[in-house]
């Protein structure tokens, strides 16, 4: 019965049909897009495929169960089938075109078997492996069946060879895909060796089957003379390809030289294993079958698929294109999406221009550029060398400057290098640290308002830079050359600034203030360290002129400049002395004898380095059990390495801090050891520095160092102080009336700390009042200001004097007769508080006592 539908019903049905068609089209489109995404991830981004599709959950559970894997593979099956069919058709026609007989029916059987094997592998091992294995195994089995059977006239033995050979290839392929992350790991060579051994084992198995299986059949055409050459040639190519494959893997993971050597050796071994015996024994057809089977079934797919060699020309073209596009203004980040590294994880071979494009990206937008580097570091393990190369370029590029603010900005630009886990070349890292120091000095220069401070910062920056230039001149390679060019540019900028600053200082109203008090004067501040050559000469003569090396005691009142003298010793003494300074107040050094000796070793290492002797510092952990013995051995080695005229001058500053609390304290052992050195180590000279004499410290000291020679540090000489006050630095532009200069010298009596403190206050006063010539009233005002700023020193003199000493001082200050207390008077004389005549040694101290302590 024919049912006639109304137009409305027809219309409705048409709509339904159209909707159904649309739904199907939509489903097909979704399926197609899904498939494309899966293929993209599998082929170009396997690690992401592993993370998102299969892979392992946190608890060690696989993401997909066997059933889910089977479903997934079934979903992909249409594509798997299509690719396998195309693959077999291409291979079959290629064989026929090259004159190799190809039986199509058995080959389809091989394809079918391969698909089944691949699916099974996929369910067991993983879906990506399954997909790849299905296509490759169907191809391998197809060609094995087609060629093997075709060439040996239905000899089932050869079919079996093909099957096993194909299976071997599939298993290898699966292993390779599965273990790829191990191959990328530079440290893990074991999986690679296992893979190589597996190849060799399978090849041997295949060969064994090839040897024994045909003997059971009478259909094997044996033609040794004709086949030998062909089979050797074909199988040798196969072996070479296999060997090179393994070599390439190793080359990329363990270094090119190792990979090259391994590849060559494997090539030879493979050629021998695959080709020679087969060719020699069985002749042309069999040899050709086995050789071609393996060649086409294993080596070529391995290169084309695992190494993605087939994609390399395309990657190359895209890389060039993206770089050219990135050179357009602000086009680098936009061009990055065209770069193959952005979308292809599996690029084994180096790509040109990628690091240059990345550098352009960083220049365009620093943050986004570094994001890209982070992305490559995390997601493109095969391209980490690109990250390294780019970071080198960025580091050198960050040093490019045109002006002083640029130099000051470099520290910020190089911030990332301190946290970078990527290993930059050592020469680059060492130079960056020095460039950073120069940059900080430039920052300091720019922020300083004081011209004197500016001059110091700039001078230090130039000094450091010139030293860096010298170190780079002697280094080979591209990076030192690039760095030297950068350093030369920096030098130009800094020198130009120095000229400008000098001109500015000439016309400036401000008086630079170089004076400093409260901390020791460093060796770099030699201009404001005046005099004391007599002390240096005395030290030198005491050591060189004595038959036996003496022990020295640099003794003087507090704040008399003892530590400053020690810091200047490397300059004051000749090159044959290596002064070593250890502050005995440093709590790190005073924790235990081990700590003391360890820190002494650090100080010695640093001290001898100033004399260009590089030795390794002592390891702390080695000293835990027998610190004295270990230190002694180390010292002996050091003495052997020292030039024969060199002596170590061990200066123990604030030596009083080593005063033993009891007879059993570790300090007693230490003092005994020091005494031993004096007696038996003539190249080590010991110099203690402190405010007290050994008799004041007690028998612990006098008993051990009775022969110590005292080098007294007292007031500076007036002529040195005049130079210090009038020309402490070349640009100093303050003058004094003769009375003012005389007043300052008289008030302080050339006591170093007070001289510096009053001069410091005087310069500030003159700058505040915008005058350049100081008079007596200015000096008086500066003295008053110094009473506050130098209060700690004056109070220390007062408290150290003790109750009786204070009575004496108060009486002298008030113009009364001081009480006669011999010990206190002697102490006050000894510590330069009063002079031999019984008056205050420093009038300024007298004034302070009168003004602040008279009641």
């Amino acid at each position, binding site marked *: 019965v024919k049912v006639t539908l109304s137009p409305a019903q027809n219309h409705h049905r048409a709509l339904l049909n159209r909707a159904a068609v649309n739904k199907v089209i939509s489903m097909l489109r979704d399926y197609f897009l899904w498939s494309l995404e899966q293929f993209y991830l599998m082929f170009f981004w396997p690690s992401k495929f592993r993370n998102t599709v299969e892979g392992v959950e946190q608890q060690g559970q696989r993401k997909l169960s066997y059933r889910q894997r089977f479903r997934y593979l079934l979903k992909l099956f249409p594509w798997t089938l299509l690719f396998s069919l195309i693959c077999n058709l291409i291979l079959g026609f290629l064989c026929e075109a090259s004159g190799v007989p190809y039986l199509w029916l058995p080959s389809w059987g091989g394809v079918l078997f391969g698909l089944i094997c691949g699916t099974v592998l996929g369910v067991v091992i993983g879906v990506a492996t399954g997909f790849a294995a299905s296509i490759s195994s169907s191809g391998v089995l197809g060609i094995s069946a087609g060629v093997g059977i075709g060439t040996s006239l239905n000899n089932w033995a050869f079919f079996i060879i093909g099957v096993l050979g194909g299976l071997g290839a599939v298993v290898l392929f699966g292993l390779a895909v599965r273990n790829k992350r191990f191959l990328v790991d530079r440290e893990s060579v074991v999986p690679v060796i296992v893979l190589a051994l597996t190849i060799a084992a399978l090849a041997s198995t295949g060969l064994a089957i090839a040897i024994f299986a045909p003997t059971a059949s009478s259909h094997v055409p044996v033609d040794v003379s004709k086949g030998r050459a062909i089979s050797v040639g074909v199988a040798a190519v196969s072996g070479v390809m296999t060997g090179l494959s393994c070599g390439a893997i190793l080359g990329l993971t363990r270094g090119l030289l190792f990979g090259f050597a391994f590849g060559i050796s494997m090539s030879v071994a493979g050629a021998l294993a695959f080709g020679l015996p087969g060719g020699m024994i069985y002749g042309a057809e069999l040899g050709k079958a086995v050789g071609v089977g393996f060649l086409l079934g294993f080596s070529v797919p391995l290169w084309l698929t695992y190494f993605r060699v087939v994609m390399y020309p395309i990657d190359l073209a895209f890389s060039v294109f993206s770089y050219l596009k990135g050179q357009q203004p602000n086009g680098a980040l936009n061009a990055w999406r065209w770069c193959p590294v952005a979308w292809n994880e599996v690029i084994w071979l180096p790509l040109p221009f990628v690091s240059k494009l990345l550098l352009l990206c960083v220049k365009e937008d620093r943050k986004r550029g570094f994001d890209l580097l982070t992305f490559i570091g995390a997601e493109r393990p095969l391209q980490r060398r690109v990250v390294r190369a780019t970071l080198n370029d960025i580091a050198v590029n960050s040093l490019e400057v045109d002006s002083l603010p640029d130099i*000051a900005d470099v520290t910020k630009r190089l911030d990332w290098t301190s946290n970078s886990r990527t290993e930059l070349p050592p020469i680059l890292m060492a130079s960056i*640290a020095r460039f*950073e*120091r*120069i940059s*900080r*000095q430039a*920052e*300091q220069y*720019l*922020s*300083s*308002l*004081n011209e004197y*401070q500016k001059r110091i910062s700039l001078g230090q920056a130039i000094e450091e830079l010139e030293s860096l230039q010298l170190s780079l001149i002697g280094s080979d390679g591209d990076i030192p050359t690039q760095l030297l060019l950068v350093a030369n540019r920096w030098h130009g900028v800094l020198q130009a600034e120095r000229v400008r600053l000098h001109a500015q200082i000439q016309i400036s109203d401000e008086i630079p*203030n170089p004076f*400093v*008090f*409260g*901390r*020791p004067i460093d060796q770099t501040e030699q201009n404001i360290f005046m005099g004391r050559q007599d002390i240096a000469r005395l030290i030198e003569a005491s050591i060189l002129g004595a038959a036996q090396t003496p022990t020295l005691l640099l003794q003087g009142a*507090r*704040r008399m400049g003892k*530590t400053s003298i020690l810091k200047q010793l490397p300059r004051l003494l000749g090159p044959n002395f290596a002064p070593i300074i250890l*502050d*005995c*107040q*440093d*709590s*790190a*050094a*005073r*924790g235990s004898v081990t*700590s003391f000796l360890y820190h002494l070793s*650090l100080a010695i290492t640093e001290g001898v380095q100033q004399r260009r002797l590089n030795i390794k510092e002592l390891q702390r952990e080695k000293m835990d059990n027998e610190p004295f013995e270990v230190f002694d051995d180390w010292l002996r080695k050091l003495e052997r390495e020292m030039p024969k005229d060199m002596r170590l001058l061990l200066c123990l500053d*604030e030596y*009083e*801090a080593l*005063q033993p609390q009891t007879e059993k304290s570790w300090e007693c052992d230490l003092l005994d050891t020091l005494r031993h050195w004096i007696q038996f180590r003539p190249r080590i000279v010991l110099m203690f520095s*402190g*405010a*007290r004499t050994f008799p*004041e*410290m007690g028998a612990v000291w006098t008993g051990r160092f009775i022969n110590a020679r005292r080098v007294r540090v007292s007031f500076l000489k007036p002529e040195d102080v005049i130079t210090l006050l009038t020309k402490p630095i070349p640009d100093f532009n303050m003058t004094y009336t003769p009375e003012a200069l005389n007043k300052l010298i008289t008030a302080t009596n050339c006591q170093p700390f007070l001289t510096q403190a009053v001069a410091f206050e005087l310069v*500030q006063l003159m700058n505040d009042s915008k005058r350049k010539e100081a008079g007596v009233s200015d000096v008086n005002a500066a003295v008053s200001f110094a009473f*506050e*700023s*130098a*209060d*700690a*020193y004056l*109070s*220390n003199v007062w*408290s*150290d004097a003790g109750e009786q000493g204070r009575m004496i001082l108060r009486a002298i200050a008030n113009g009364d007769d001081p009480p006669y207390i011999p010990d206190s008077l002697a102490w006050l004389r000894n510590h330069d508080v009063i002079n031999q005549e019984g008056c205050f040694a420093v009038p300024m101290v007298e004034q302070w006592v009168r003004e602040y302590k008279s009641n």
Partner: protein
Amino acid sequence: MESELKYPFWLSGLITDPAQVFDRERAKARLRLYLSKGISCQIVGPPSIGKSSLLYNLQHFAREWDPTAKVAYLDLQSAECWTVSDVYTKAAEAWGVGERHAKEEAISRTVKELSKGGLRVVLCLDEFARIVRRPDEFTIDFFLGLRSLGQSGLTIFTSTRQVLHELIPSYNPTSPFFNIFALLRIGLFSDEDAAAFVDAPREGVPPYSREEKSAILSFAKGHPLALQIACFNVLFAKQNGESLATALEMANEDMQARLGKNDPENIQGSTAE
């Protein structure tokens, strides 16, 4: 937020906004000079005079004055600074070095390395007297170690009511901790500075009348905290319809509660810790 805008005064004592540190130009200039030369300094003054505010904001000022400065500010009242190890750990954190650099054995090397790297390493120790009260933890060795650091690259700033030599016990025979410090005393605002403080324009605050200003200045006598409290109370009273006398009474009670003194001027003389 609204109330903050209505009453822009720092009543808690510690001013944490560097822009609000009023006056103290001489003190700042001194500190800048000492910082540039690496001279350690003790800031000494009576309670609530602004020592802590100055020291706290030195973190900000120092970075402005010298970009290479790495400043660690430690409030030694805090329970986080009750042991030597805590002090060094907090300092190391602020200097941006790892915890292993904070150990007592490593700290001097850390300071030397930072200094060699071109950095100015600064340690601000607020309420320094607090650690003197824990002699079992902060022994003479600690002070000697700190002095040694001060001689090898560390610039130390402390804030105390008393000068350091009165605070730290004598420990002959070696050099005392305090004799490396320059002294900077800070005291009351001058009359001009106090007047300028009252007159300073503040967003959302109507200017004080001549009578109010005179009352505030007369009450505060140049004491910075008293000025803040008086300004706040006068403004509050004005906005709530109360009299000037009530405002000053409130201010007096507040000051008394904080300092135990009726007269802010007396505070200057108080040096007892």
